[in-house]
């Protein structure tokens, strides 16, 4: 409908001072929008031609395109009144206060402050554009044009909104950047992050992204969190039990994973290493100056291992041994503590791979080797297979020489050694090794998952019991020193120099990461990370969104005044390394409505020599 026709239909309202009748649509026209049916998308001009040749066909095609375009663009936003959510624009806070929430969007958007519900301007504007919301200002609904005028500021720029709305239209969920989440790549890989509460993590979220927010919003949020605290204090008695349970279950699952891993690793080695296992075990026990804590772990693991076959003992002990040393190292290494599990035993397994593939055919007999060795080896008589020459070795050839084999062992006829296959196995194992070679780090405090579960009915009982437990753990030959009023600062469990220094607070540790973070250029860049992007997920929770799918920076490509150049490579790489979880950082480049996404990725150039 043309504007003139609209004017005529609105003759009654023509005198109005408030309304421009060219925009306003009348009841019959509103009524035409009632049917939801033909909501198809017209094609954009169809298949393109090479160049204009002035032909009748081309002119007609263009005319048709223009016709459709006019119709499409003049279409108005009309919605059923009952489907609309309403909110009030607050120009001081630069937020929209919701009257009532309705529909699914509240799952992805907004926040609450004392029982008031707020939406960020970009969220509100997106809802306005998708016909789900009407934002009022002092009783009059805002048009999208007015929203463009007053919603944007330094906090939310047009470019940021354009990126936001672009991805929201595609279905992604965007949350304002939450800062570093401090989940390690390993935790992400084993999906531990989905089970861990954020407050359990040692180094809490550094809410850098939130600094973007105006003080007003911050205050609101603070007051809100303070409010939330109060009831939770009261409730803590009931909830503490649950939390303890949760903690221990994490402990267990973690120990299990490492345990299972170790089992998997050792299984191919089989009994060959059995004896060494026993020896090593003794060694470790002697050498260890175990603290009470770690002893307990060892015990736990020993119980487990006893149930299993003997061979697993070796690795589980190693793991626990590893734990000990690392634990004591890590103990003083705050504020950021990463325990790195380097499964050294893995190396050994791989080294012995060749022997493994040899020995597998006669697994059953292996145990006998150690006891029944041939009396003497005359090497001039024994012909060893030439693996280099023949690609496939048939062992039946060597079958004639019975003294090569342990007593009572007969090679099956089909026993073949394929060197090519073996090589393949080796290389694939190598890949596996590379894959698993990265640090198995945890972002949580080790004491958290080393805690022994305490069964208590209420908070008081829990405290008493855990106090008791702590004292018990510290039962050392010098425990009497802690009985008096003056107690030593250093406990025997501080086995490393670092932990002693930490306790005495002689030298404060500083980690490399925090140093990078302090550099000013990076801090500036922190503000460039605008959004955390999540894939559409029905289980998405605003309060604990988990790890994003990727993070988003917004750059404006623009000749007009505020062109933002790309930061230097050092800052880019630093920024990428600042996030420990390995989630990709994307850069959205916006140029007058055109949006393109680019990403920087660390690349490992293969060494060809």
């Amino acid at each position, binding site marked *: 409908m043309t504007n003139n026709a609209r004017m005529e239909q609105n003759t009654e309202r023509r005198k109005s001072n408030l*309304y421009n009748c060219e925009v306003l649509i009348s009841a019959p026209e509103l*009524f035409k929008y009632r049917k939801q049916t033909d909501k198809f998308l017209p094609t954009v001009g169809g298949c393109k031609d*090479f160049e204009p040749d002035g032909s009748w066909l081309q002119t007609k095609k263009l005319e048709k395109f223009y016709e459709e375009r006019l119709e499409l663009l003049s279409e108005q936003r009309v919605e059923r009144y009952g489907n609309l959510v309403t909110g009030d624009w607050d120009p001081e806070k630069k937020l929209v206060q919701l009257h009532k929430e309705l529909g699914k969007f509240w799952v992805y958007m907004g926040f609450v402050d004392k029982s008031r519900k707020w939406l960020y301007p970009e969220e509100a504007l997106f809802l306005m554009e998708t016909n789900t919301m009407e934002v009022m200002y002092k009783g009059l609904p805002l048009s999208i*044009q007015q929203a463009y005028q007053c919603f944007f500021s330094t906090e939310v720029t047009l470019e940021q909104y354009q990126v936001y709305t672009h991805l929201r239209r595609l279905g992604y969920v965007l949350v304002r950047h939450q800062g570093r989440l401090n989940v390690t790549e390993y935790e992400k890989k084993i999906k531990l992050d989905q089970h861990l509460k954020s407050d359990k993590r040692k180094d809490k979220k550094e809410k850098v992204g939130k600094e973007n927010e105006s003080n007003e919003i911050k205050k609101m949020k603070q007051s809100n969190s303070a409010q939330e605290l109060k009831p939770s204090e009261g409730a803590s008695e009931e909830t503490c039990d649950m939390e303890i349970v949760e903690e221990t279950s994490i402990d267990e699952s973690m120990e299990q994973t490492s345990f299972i891993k170790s089992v998997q690793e050792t299984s191919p080695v089989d009994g060959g290493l059995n004896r060494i296992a026993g020896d090593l075990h003794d060694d470790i026990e002697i050498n260890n100056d175990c603290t009470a804590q770690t002893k307990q772990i060892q015990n736990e693991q020993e119980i487990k291992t006893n149930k299993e076959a003997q061979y697993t003992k070796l690795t589980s002990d190693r793991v626990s041994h590893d734990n000990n040393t690392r634990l004591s190292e890590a103990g003083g290494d705050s504020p950021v503590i990463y325990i790195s599990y380097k499964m050294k035993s893995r190396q050994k397994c791989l080294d012995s791979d060749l022997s493994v593939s040899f020995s597998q055919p006669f697994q059953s007999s292996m145990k006998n080797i150690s006891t029944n060795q041939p009396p003497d080896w005359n090497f001039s008589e024994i012909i060893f297979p030439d693996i280099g020459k023949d690609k496939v070795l048939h062992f039946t050839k060597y079958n004639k020489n019975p003294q090569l084999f342990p007593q009572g062992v007969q090679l099956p006829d089909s026993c073949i050694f394929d060197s090519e296959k073996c090589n393949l196995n080796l290389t694939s194992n190598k890949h596996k090794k590379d894959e698993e070679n990265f640090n198995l780090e945890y972002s949580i405090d080790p004491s958290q998952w080393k805690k022994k579960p305490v069964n208590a009915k209420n908070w008081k009982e829990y405290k008493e019991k855990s106090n008791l437990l702590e004292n018990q753990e510290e039962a050392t030959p010098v425990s009497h020193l802690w009985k008096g009023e003056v107690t030593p600062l250093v406990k025997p469990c501080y086995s490393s120099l670092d932990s002693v220094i930490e306790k005495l607070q002689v030298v404060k540790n500083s980690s490399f990461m925090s140093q990078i973070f302090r550099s000013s250029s990076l801090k500036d860049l922190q503000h460039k990370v605008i959004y955390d992007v999540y894939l559409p997920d029905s289980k998405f929770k605003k309060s604990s969104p988990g790890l994003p799918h990727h993070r988003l920076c917004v750059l404006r490509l623009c000749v007009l005044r505020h062109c933002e150049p790309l930061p230097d490579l050092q800052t880019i790489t630093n920024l990428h390394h600042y996030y420990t979880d390995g989630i990709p950082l994307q850069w959205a480049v916006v140029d007058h409505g055109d949006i393109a996404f680019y990403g920087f990725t660390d690349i490992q150039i293969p060494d060809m020599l």
Partner: protein
Amino acid sequence: MSDRCRIKIYLQNQNVFVWSAKDSVTLREEWRIVGSLVGCLPRLPRQNNQLGLPLQLLPEETTMLLEKGVCLLVKPKENLLEPTPEQVKEHEQLRLDLYKEQIELFKDERRKEMMHNLHQIKEGKRKKLKEEIERKKEAGETVHETDLDVEIDIDSIQIPPVALKNSLVQLYTESPYNEALDECGSEWSYPSNDKEATRYKVFKDLWKKGHYLTSGSKFGGDFLVYPGDPARFHSFYIAVCRPYKQQISMSDFISLARMGSNVRKTVILCSVDDNDQVVYTSIQWTGIA
């Protein structure tokens, strides 16, 4: 051209938008100004293939339209109009009026629907009656068979008015209010430096030659040059603006040439010479071995 006839373009936070559908169509069809649509399409808001109003203009487009006197750059006098109580009342009255008008329309619609399905309704009623008669017969009552003919007078049926929550309301894209606007063409300072001046001159020159231009950021150039409407034709050239007297880094030059041959477009280096003439040079990777 008087101020009234000129197309209003809005300066909002340093960006320029067209909010009227009619105006954006005029700009495209009569003035070969493409711009880019950046809003959600009202019909299908959750997709990126086709977008809706507003139309965002390039700074070059804005400057040229202002220069030609086609458009008037405006911004509201006040950032946000404080509505008076009368205006709020007027808004509420309008909503109410539109609702009341819709009641009748919905009633007519319902009536038409009933008219359309009249034979089905009659069939249903007849069936019901028959069943009732059968029941009565079984009970041993005397029945008049003539009752079977059903007459329905649609006009006499009472149709309840449509509920308020089911009534339709318009969500405003373009502002429907008569706001006081400030002409702010003097605030528009593009081009403000040499680089921008070169870009603007190149833009204007290419436009004058009858080409359609869009932003060239997709390919790392300044403009994409189309022989006809971009919806119907592919672009021929990638225009790259360079200062007339500055050396070009060899690697830049090579990457431009190779990129151009990859996307099958001609890369043209554009510049303004000492006589203020726009000069064009095309690069081709010839591939002579």
